[in-house]
């Protein structure tokens, strides 16, 4: 075999590998979908799709914010606590009407975001530690405001949680709209470009004169507000505020969705389509295991394996 053919074969293999890494998550979704179609009874039903989609919506919304944080070479561990805080605020201020309460819940998310972003941008604390502090404090704050589970009786909230347009639940519509919005922000706005530049190389971004601090704070505000939106929607769906358990381990699911979707942890790149597919993939994986009577613990193990595989693939991509 001549060097030339050998070289071409390697190139072909590389390209195949590259394609697999780039579109692997979509392939995974399709494969799992087909597997379930064949092997899972009642999988292909409107009712099932509806349930799955409604379950995935809050995770996806949190993952969108997480994608921005990871794109800026950060991470936001506080998202689960922000969900808890938003549900507490919502219950507390429901007396002023649902829209006022929702607004206050979102402002709460934004405030946590400002705190996260300031620690990271002004003090120079690593994102993982800064958001860790807010994760601990945020959950505590949520429990101080609302010590235990409280039912939410409000017609507007109930319709937000279970209503639909032409059979598509509001939750799914909102998640889809937010995904489009975030994708647009990343691709088409100055903020998006600055975010990616900062994630690529913060020193270079600073030397280029980008408003690094402002952008970083805005990134964490976006993440906080999106997590608060997810908290509000989850509350509406459950018709109850449960600050003890709402959003527990949400940071893990969100990070998994983002990473599996092909956004590198090293920042500088955000894939919103991949994040959507990543969230769907995890949801399908969970469904597959549960519907076939495998214990929930297997889901965790499977999720762990998927994370490692995805990051391993991303590593190869990063080296190229």
């Amino acid at each position, binding site marked *: 075999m001549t060097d030339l053919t050998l070289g071409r074969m390697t190139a072909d293999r590389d390209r195949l590998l590259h394609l697999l890494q780039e579109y692997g998550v979509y392939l995974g979704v399709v494969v799992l979908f087909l597997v379930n179609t064949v092997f899972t009874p009642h999988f292909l039903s409107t009712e099932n799709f509806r349930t799955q989609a409604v379950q995935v919506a809050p995770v996806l919304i949190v993952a969108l914010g997480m994608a921005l944080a990871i794109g800026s070479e950060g991470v936001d561990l506080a998202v689960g606590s922000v969900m808890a805080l938003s549900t507490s605020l919502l219950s507390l201020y429901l007396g002023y009407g649902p829209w006022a309460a929702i607004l206050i819940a979102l402002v709460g998310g934004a405030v946590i975001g400002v705190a996260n972003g300031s620690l990271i941008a002004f003090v120079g*604390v690593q994102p993982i530690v800064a958001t860790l502090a*807010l994760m601990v404090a945020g959950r505590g704050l949520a429990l101080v405001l609302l010590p235990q589970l409280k039912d939410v009786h409000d017609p507007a909230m109930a319709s937000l949680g279970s209503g639909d347009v032409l059979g598509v639940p509001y939750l799914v519509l909102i998640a889809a709209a937010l995904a489009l919005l975030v994708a647009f922000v990343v691709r088409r706005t100055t903020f998006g470009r600055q975010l990616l530049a900062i994630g690529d190389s913060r020193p270079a971004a600073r030397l280029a004169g980008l408003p690094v601090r402002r952008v970083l704070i805005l990134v964490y505000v976006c993440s906080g507000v999106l997590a608060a939106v997810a908290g509000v929607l989850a509350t509406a769906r459950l018709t109850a505020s449960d600050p003890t358990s709402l959003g527990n381990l949400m940071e893990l699911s969100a990070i998994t969705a983002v990473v599996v979707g092909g956004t590198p942890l090293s920042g500088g790149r955000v894939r919103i389509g991949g994040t959507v597919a990543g969230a769907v993939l995890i949801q399908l994986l969970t469904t597959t295991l549960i519907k076939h009577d495998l214990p929930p613990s297997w889901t965790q193990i499977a999720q762990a394996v998927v994370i490692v595989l995805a990051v391993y693939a991303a590593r190869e991509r990063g080296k190229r």
Partner: protein
Amino acid sequence: MTTDVDTPVIAKSTAEDEPTGASRSERLSALAQQHGALVTLIVAMIAASLSFDTFLTGDNLENMALSSAFLAVVALGMTFVIVTGGIDLSVGSLFALGGVLAAWGSRYGTAVALLLPLAVCGAIGLLNGLLIARSRLAPFIVTLASMLGARGILLSVTDEGSKTYLVDKDSFFAKLGQNTLLGVGVPVWITLALFVLGAVVLRRTRFGQYVYAVGGNEDAAALMGAPVARTKISVYTLSGLCAGFAGALNAAWLVSGVTILGSGMELEAISAVVIGGTLLTGGFGFISGSLVGVLLLKVIQNVINQIGSLDSAYQQVVSGAFLAVVVIAQTWLGRRRRVL
């Protein structure tokens, strides 16, 4: 590296102009970083004993010492990891897994009760280390995955958390957790011994030097001939072993393996290490500081519990706020040191 860029250029030139003042300031920063936690701990303990009659009682101190002991062993392993510039999020799950495995194994004798958790948790730590050092994956994400995975294994072992394994109260293993020596619980003695050992290893052995070197500057460490990969693999294995052992010790104390333990423990351990003066960027830290950090966390929790009107939710708010303050102070001190 980022901090270097954050550093104002002007500060650098002033530092060169006044070498004497600079070195004094540098020394002060280092002192504050090294002993700040200890001073805070002493102040907190004095304040607590003046405010509550119930604080300086034998029972209360013993309880604090015991509950600190288990966290301290976890924090010991975490210190090594953080000094290399890494992080280990799997320790909470490994702590719980170690406890359940120990309780299950205790029916076959103390040796099995101790060796089984060490073997399993050590193996998971080793896997963490291999993925991080050989495959060059981010420590944060690898240990996040094993945090999930270990919790999954744990649930699988206990029939989705429904089964509780009890330790025979009369076994030697149970005595290991429950007996006292000179009025102090055996787990506390074991923890102290491990900390002395850990401090000697980090300060006085070649391996300890490698740990600092890898955390200080990985490329330089490699050029200097330090076995970077092997050092990293060792610290994650060590962290897994510590977490598993702490879990086993805890199971001996509780005479049962409790599935739900250890969630959030990784955060407590990281907080303790950071409060103790170890830099999360790696290359700088003390074993003794982590012990002080654990004690400080426990004293704060204890004080909040003593204030009856405050519920435990405030504990989290205070812990989180305290961690933020410490990290801000530490980043500031660290930056000063690096400037000068």
